[in-house]
């Protein structure tokens, strides 16, 4: 079931909320976890009931691994259980996600004719696999416990984050799920949660879906082998960048909002990444829970041995930089690119971002001394950096969206046809109907929202919208500072936003981009 479906908005959500607070109301608080597990399984099984068994098996398997890791802590058995657990998770993920990809590529390389029945990708497998790998690592580090199965199952299954994140940690969810505050301040939490949910739904159904209407035909044309012009190329890059941001940040808002209606806070997933003035900053604020996972479970574990190796080899300053920063970043991001899906477009997208990051780190190191002397860059330079970051992101997004590498190249070629600048005049809305038929006005409106307005967390800042909010409270403040509070003005505004968002949702449900991963 998806958050933007009418059956979720009008049936599942109200019923699950009503039963939840009714259980608390009649003093059955201790059964809340069982209820949440059941509701989450119903939520998940609507998509494909047999795959719910895979999810359950995965949870049982990981719990057993966690149990062994904790029981035999600091022993060989514990390390073995951790290794086996991580490998088993990656094995299942690889089978469902990459088996066909590897066989297709092997056939191309070897000229063989191996076939495999097309495997259906289980919904949310990339996310719940990462959540559980993170859990095993946390148990081995002693930051998570493996005692009660019900606690573990509630933590993994909690439906708002189950399908597409944010990728949560045991230590931040279980104290909330089993704490004493569960069910308190119901009206306040529902008001805050619904407001966040409505904003997310609006982002998805109104902005992202509209942007898709302009981007998709151009990507389809590129896939059909058509040459792409300058205007079409830039339209594709800009509208898809708008789409993917509002789609995924909208989804995250909805997840955070739904969790809040149940009285729980999730970690943030976006913090105005498109206002970032560097790629490093961009990745700190884009899909933040994935970045936290990468840093904690992938980057940090490889950094120490590599640094030791660089010291052992007595590498120079820049060689050390290449070995300890640039290379790991490019490789890690290529892997993260592949995590998005079994396609070379994703690998290229990841490699591009890895290269961007390495370049950005290099630039930052070079600028360090200068900045110490001359201070931080002025507003003009920051504007230039922002433009450059957006440009780099938009270029990479073209490959992220393309169905094949050659499609992305066709669109890039179109974007670089500087000889046909006169085409750009075609973007101007000259007739009243062009306001909706052409993307310019809509794109400018979306850019204004990104550039000027507070993000959802900033808008809800008074009510602690997400976990770890103190860390982000003062980052990237908006030009127009709007903050929500329960007032008539905001009731009318949010109701209008919810009405439009639900109306757009009723036109036909569209998939979330990240749900496919």
């Amino acid at each position, binding site marked *: 079931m998806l958050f933007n479906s009418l059956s979720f908005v009008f049936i599942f959500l109200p019923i699950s909320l009503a039963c939840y607070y009714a259980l608390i109301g009649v003093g059955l608080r201790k059964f809340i976890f069982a209820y949440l597990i059941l509701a989450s399984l119903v939520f998940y099984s609507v998509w494909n009931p047999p795959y719910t068994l895979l999810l359950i098996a995965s949870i049982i398997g990981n719990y057993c691994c966690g149990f062994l890791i904790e029981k035999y802590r600091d022993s060989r058995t514990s390390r073995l259980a951790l290794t086996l657990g991580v490998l088993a998770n990656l094995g299942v993920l690889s089978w469902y996600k990459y088996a066909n990809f590897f066989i297709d590529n092997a056939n191309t390389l070897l000229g063989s004719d191996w076939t495999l029945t097309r495997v259906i990708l289980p919904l949310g497998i990339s996310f719940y696999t990462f959540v559980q790998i993170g859990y095993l690592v946390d148990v081995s580090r002693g930051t998570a416990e493996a005692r009660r199965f019900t606690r573990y199952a509630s933590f993994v299954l909690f439906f708002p984050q189950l399908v597409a994140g944010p990728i949560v940690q045991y230590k931040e969810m279980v104290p909330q799920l089993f704490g004493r505050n569960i069910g308190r301040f119901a009206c306040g939490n529902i008001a805050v949660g619904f407001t966040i949910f409505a904003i997310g739904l609006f982002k998805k159904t109104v902005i992202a879906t509209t942007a898709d209407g302009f981007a998709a035909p151009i990507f389809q044309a590129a896939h059909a082998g058509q040459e792409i012009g300058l205007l079409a190329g830039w339209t594709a890059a800009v509208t898809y960048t708008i789409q993917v941001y509002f789609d995924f940040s909208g989804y995250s808002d909805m997840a955070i909002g739904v969790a809040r209606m149940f009285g729980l806070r999730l970690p943030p997933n976006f913090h105005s990444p498109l206002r970032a003035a560097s790629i490093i900053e961009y990745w700190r604020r884009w899909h933040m829970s994935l970045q936290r996972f990468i840093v904690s479970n992938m980057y940090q574990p490889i950094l120490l041995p590599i640094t030791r190796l660089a010291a052992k080899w007595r590498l120079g300053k820049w060689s050390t930089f290449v070995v300890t920063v640039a290379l790991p970043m490019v490789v890690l991001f290529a892997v993260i690119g592949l995590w998005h899906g079994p396609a070379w477009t994703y690998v290229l997208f990841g490699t591009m971002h890895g290269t961007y990051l390495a370049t950005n780190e290099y630039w930052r190191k070079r600028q360090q001394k200068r900045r110490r002397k001359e201070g931080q860059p002025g507003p003009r330079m920051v504007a230039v950096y922002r433009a450059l970051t957006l440009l780099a992101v938009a270029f990479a997004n073209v490959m992220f969206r393309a169905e094949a590498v050659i499609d992305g190249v066709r669109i890039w070629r179109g974007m670089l046809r500087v000889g046909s600048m006169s085409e750009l005049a075609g973007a101007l809305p000259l007739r009243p109907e062009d306001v909706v038929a052409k993307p310019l006005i809509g794109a400018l409106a979306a850019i204004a929202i990104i550039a000027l307005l507070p993000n959802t967390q900033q808008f809800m800042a008074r009510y602690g919208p997400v976990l770890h909010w103190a860390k982000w409270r003062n980052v990237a403040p908006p030009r127009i500072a709007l903050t929500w509070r329960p007032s008539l003005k905001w009731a009318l505004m949010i109701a209008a936003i919810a*009405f439009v968002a639900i109306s757009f949702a009723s036109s036909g449900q569209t998939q979330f981009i990240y749900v496919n991963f």
Partner: protein
Amino acid sequence: MSTTRYLGAMLLTILALSAVAVLLPHSTYVRYQSLNGTMFERTRYFYERLHFDPAPVDIIILGASRAAAGISSPHLEADLAKRGKNLRVVNLSLPAAAMDMNLVIAREALRERPDTRMMIVLLPDAFPRQGNAPFAELATNEDIFANPVPWDGEWLRALGRLPMRQMQLFARTHLPGAFGYTTRFDPALYPGTTVDRDALPGWKPPVPQEGYHTAAHKAVVDSQSALRHRLLSPPKLPPALSWLEYGASQAAARKLIQLCHEKHTRLIFVYVPYYKGPQEPREAAWLRTQAPLWVETSVSSDPSLYADSGHPSSLALPVLSAWLADRIAADLPPGAAAGVTSGGNR
């Protein structure tokens, strides 16, 4: 403001906005174009035939794809003419149409053409349990609100979609060019007064690759028929609860009967089974108490008369047309409705 009041104010605002949206006016012609690009695209033609074509409408055919494939207006008009009845026939069948959709189209047709003499409704093998998907796009507010079936998914979908649909239709009516719509009838694009079944856009009757008189074709339709028979599941609830199981169809059928009665239009139910299908529709007993039920089963054992198990082939057109013309000619009083031919074929 307390959060409880905040939530209440939001709820009221959403309801108020929904009510305003539902009341937004629009062009019905634009609404009948909203299925363009889908298998239901022929609805635009329905509207144009009813509203812009001056030729009279004497007989309306309603039904689903079996009616769209099996009843040819030119054939039927010619057969009626041979029997001394110059009547104009319009086939307003829509693929997959359930009773709710038949009612929507019948209402529009009789609103514009109240002098229609006969409404022929080709029945499904059994009433569908659910309404029809294009109902949400084509139904008027009255169709939706006057016929509430809250346990029917399609009715709920239509209700949920209504505010957005009305806003879209409002925008399309006022900025038709931006959305690829038109508010002006273009005679050059009009398919004609009496058009054959293949001339309309959208869904087309199937044509078997293997030919009609081959053993391969017989094998295909035999297996399809067996599958169709298995899928024709008996009622799941006892007869006393059939209003729950078949509520959408039953309610729409009753309204359709009532509508024809009010407009003094002769209502006829017709049943043509699928290949090797049942001898009469499941609801035959009740339907016979409401209007005449004409059943043609002689075609149902000949595989060459079916393009697939559910749809009559082009070879069946003359057979069904002659059979129907006989019945209509016998049913209508002598000398009734000498059709005016001002529109003519285009």
